[in-house]
């Protein structure tokens, strides 16, 4: 198993609120690109993404676990590229609860309760980290 460790400095980038890019690929080789609003730091070896609307993404990673995440660092204008591997989805537990809490908070402010529903927290293992 190939695994990498997220450096500390990436936590601020994950937090900076700039939407990140997630790319997946179906089992028959068709890539899929989505812009996601938030990626969550789980631990040095994992990130989590919220599954709300983009079902093609979850279908792809269940067929083919490889994924790529691109973040933009506003501090030094560099891009972070993460090679990820989908591990599992959580519908309970601390990660799911924390994500759900944030989504619920935003949903209630914006009149979107019930629409903004966290379906799952998708957990990805970090395979590689690079910066360009």
């Amino acid at each position, binding site marked *: 198993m190939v695994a990498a460790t997220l450096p500390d400095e990436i936590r601020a980038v994950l937090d900076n609120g700039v939407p990140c*890019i997630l*790319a*997946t*690929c179906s*089992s028959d*080789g*068709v*890539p*899929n*690109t*989505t*812009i996601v*609003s938030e990626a969550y730091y789980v631990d040095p070896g994992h990130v989590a993404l919220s599954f*709300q*609307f*983009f*079902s*093609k993404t979850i279908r792809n990673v269940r067929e*083919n676990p*490889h*994924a*790529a*995440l*691109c973040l*933009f660092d*506003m501090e030094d*204008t560099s*891009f972070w*590229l993460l*090679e990820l591997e989908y591990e599992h989805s959580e519908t309970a537990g601390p990660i799911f609860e924390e994500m759900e809490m944030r989504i619920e908070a935003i949903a209630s402010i914006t009149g979107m309760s019930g*629409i903004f529903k966290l379906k799952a927290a998708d957990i990805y293992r970090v395979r590689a980290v690079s910066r*360009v």
Partner: protein
Amino acid sequence: MIPGVMAEFLGRASVAVASTRDARKVPHIHFLCGWSVGDDGRSVICLVPAAFSDKLPESLARHADFAMVAEVIGPHECYQFKGRHVDSRPAGAADRAVYESCRQRFVDAVQRHTRNRFADAILRARFREPRLAVRFEVQEIFVQTPGPAAGRRLFPPEG
């Protein structure tokens, strides 16, 4: 043919990102610094900076599948264009106008959206100089605007 409304959308989009895949079906992300509809009306030309173009033409020669998502920042109007790579060439002077136009749209959109929170320079830095111009033929267009309808195919129409 790319529907006119989609072509018009691409003329408004403020950010675009492409993805390809390699032999192991590992996806790769290519942050674009410009995009425009090809003269044939069926393809889109994507300008790719150096940081995202390493071995890209070779990869595309073997695995031509190409996906590009474009968004108008602010309203989050977003569509994904999927198709197959046609050809690639080094970016040149002819692409400059597209690059600068797209970059400026990006800067303007972000500044409008964030009420001028960032320095223009930081935002412009995200749109690095193009190295490659990659053309792909659009075969499908999907709604990618967040919401319950995300993933619906617009072109060719579903059903």
